[in-house]
């Protein structure tokens, strides 16, 4: 029987994937979803404070892009940051413990859900203010270029971020200074409860088409398929690596949950039918699973094992977080100033803190 052709599977970056690598991409997406389901459960049990912005439904966008990165390639994103964190290789334990506000969290309980970081994995957060990370992403690209490193920065943002001034300033500078940054707009259709139609004026081509104004190459495509995401993000990465030029990519995706778990209107500004339609027709995990089964790389049995293992890992991370200690009160004043933490001459000269 002739092999069913899946679009973009023939792109060189995809054709070179081994079966194991394909399974790992699936595993990462499943782990992200299971992690977030466990986080939602913990939130509903009042183990987590503040906001919880879930990524469920969008997993392919983080996993597809990040799977392409090499030694000098970096990632930065906004507050919906759990998926990117697991995709760069952060562990569920440290991520879940951060949600619980525990000392064993990736930011020692000081950042919370919106502020995950792992600079050792080239992951620079996790930023709470909409579009606030977009100049930082250009700055990371600036540093790579300044230090003569061939790399890039994938700077993720939501569709709601494109109306902030800092994004436009970053685009202008990225183009002007030829910075190797790839802006990836994760277009889930809603900036909190306001639909794209009600929030963004844009050219016919889409949100990314605004990049024309800055002479930046752009593309817009659907985000259900890992093959398509990988093929098209790779084009932008190549542009960054070879030409030191920025790109803007708009990837169409959908979040099943509300803007945050505290979003009381998650099923009011959009219909249940719409959510259901995306879940059945546009689920990136189901899509990739079907692709791999079609290729004979995956069996239903293997898939069940992956799901079971990811669920068990997520449950174990919640247990790890639950058992971990909260930070000690004395740690409130750690990690404010580098010089103080390192007890340098600068850090021990003059008064740095003014409480009490």
């Amino acid at each position, binding site marked *: 029987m002739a092999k069913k052709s899946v679009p973009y599977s023939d792109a060189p970056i995809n054709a070179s994937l081994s079966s194991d690598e394909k399974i790992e991409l699936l595993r990462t997406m499943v782990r992200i979803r299971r992690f977030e389901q466990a986080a939602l459960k913990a939130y509903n049990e009042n183990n987590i404070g503040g906001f919880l912005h879930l990524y469920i439904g969008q997993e392919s966008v983080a996993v597809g892009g990040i799977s392409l990165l090499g030694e000098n390639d970096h990632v930065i994103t906004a507050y919906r940051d759990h998926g990117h964190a697991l995709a760069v290789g952060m562990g569920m334990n440290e991520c879940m413990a951060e949600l619980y506000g525990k000392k064993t969290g990736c930011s020692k309980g000081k*950042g919370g859900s919106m502020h995950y970081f792992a600079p050792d994995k080239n992951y620079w957060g996790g930023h709470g203010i909409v579009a*606030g990370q977009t100049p930082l*992403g250009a700055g990371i690209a600036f540093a790579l270029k*300044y230090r003569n490193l061939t790399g890039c920065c994938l700077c993720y943002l939501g569709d709601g971020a494109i109306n902030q001034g800092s994004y436009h300033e970053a685009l202008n500078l990225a183009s002007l200074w030829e910075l190797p940054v790839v802006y990836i707009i994760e277009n889930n259709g809603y900036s909190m409860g306001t639909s794209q139609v009600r929030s963004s004026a844009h050219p016919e081509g889409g949100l990314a088409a605004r990049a024309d104004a800055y002479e930046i190459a752009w593309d817009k495509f659907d985000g259900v398929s890992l093959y398509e995401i990988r093929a098209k993000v790779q084009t932008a990465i190549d542009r960054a690596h070879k030409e030191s030029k920025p790109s803007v990519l708009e990837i169409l995706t959908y979040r099943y949950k509300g803007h945050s778990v505290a979003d009381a209107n998650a099923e009011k500004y959009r219909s249940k039918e719409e959510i259901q339609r995306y879940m059945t027709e546009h689920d990136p995990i189901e899509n990739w699973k079907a692709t791999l089964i079609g290729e004979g790389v995956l069996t239903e049995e293997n898939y069940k094992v992956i799901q079971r293992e990811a669920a068990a890992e997520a449950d174990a991370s919640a247990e790890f977080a639950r058992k971990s200690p909260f930070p000690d009160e004395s740690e409130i004043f750690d*990690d404010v100033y580098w010089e103080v933490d390192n007890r340098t001459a600068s850090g021990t000269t*003059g*008064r740095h803190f003014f409480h009490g």
Partner: protein
Amino acid sequence: MPREITYREALKEALDEELAHDENVVIIGEEVAEYNGAYKVTEGLWKKWGSKRLIDAPISEAGFIGIGIGASMLGVRPVMELMFYSFAYVAFDQMMNNAAAVRYMSGGLIHCPIVVRGPANGGTNVGATHSHTPENIFANMPGLKVVSPSHPIDAKGLLKSAIRDNDPVYFMESTVLYGTKGLVPANEELEGGELLIPLGKADVKREGTDISLIAHGRAVLTCLAAAEILESQHQISAEVVDLRSIRPLDEETIMASVRKTHRAIYVEENKPFCGIGAQISSMIMEQAFDDLDAPVLRIASADAPAIYSPPLEKMQLPVPEEVVARALTLF
């Protein structure tokens, strides 16, 4: 022999020396390179160091300050120039959230060795939008350091230390001071061969026994002039304490002076409400109450937006005569 150079030249020497000291130091700002600096602080540096080390930015503070902060996370040491510190307000999110808090929110995994420098003063008839003095606003945020030099020697020594510091330092200068002169030692006469003044160390600019005039930035010069009048016309010996660094703060030098003189006035060109003087006078009250013979006074700029009208703007800022008059009420 110490040379007499301007505050502007002192800053330029600091920048030039730090460009030589560390290849990761890069100067970015509006008109800093080819234009030679809006206030000529960077004059000649682009010609000497080239376009990799001195970069002209478009008028886009949120963008280029944010880029500097991002680059600093990866080990570049950007020295950003704000043509006016008033323009910090369009880069506020970057300066207040990203530079100040990323270390904390990452549990200490990241730090931002960035300097943002520029003039933060009124008194030049440019109206309210260009006359902001945000030292109190930024000093309010843990994670930031705020420096405000009054003399050329401080400008040079503090800027060099700020650039070598591994935390974000917001360095506030004064266009009124750029042309003022002062003695600055040449490197060859210094132990270690260079001028480094640590952040967090105040300087007693004039010793006295009867009252402490404590100040930062250009107000230090106002206090020195007031001290002259107090001595020559009123036989009052005033000590002038220059904070130099607002955060970190040298409270020991402040308290030692107050314990000696038993009277204190804080003088600043900042606004009075929650200004630096409010912080310092509160600390003096808490730590040296029994040493005081009179209430601690505060003198700041008039509590209105900076007025344009030149003769009236002069009346908005503290002048030596006002300091003298208020000082005399304490005796």
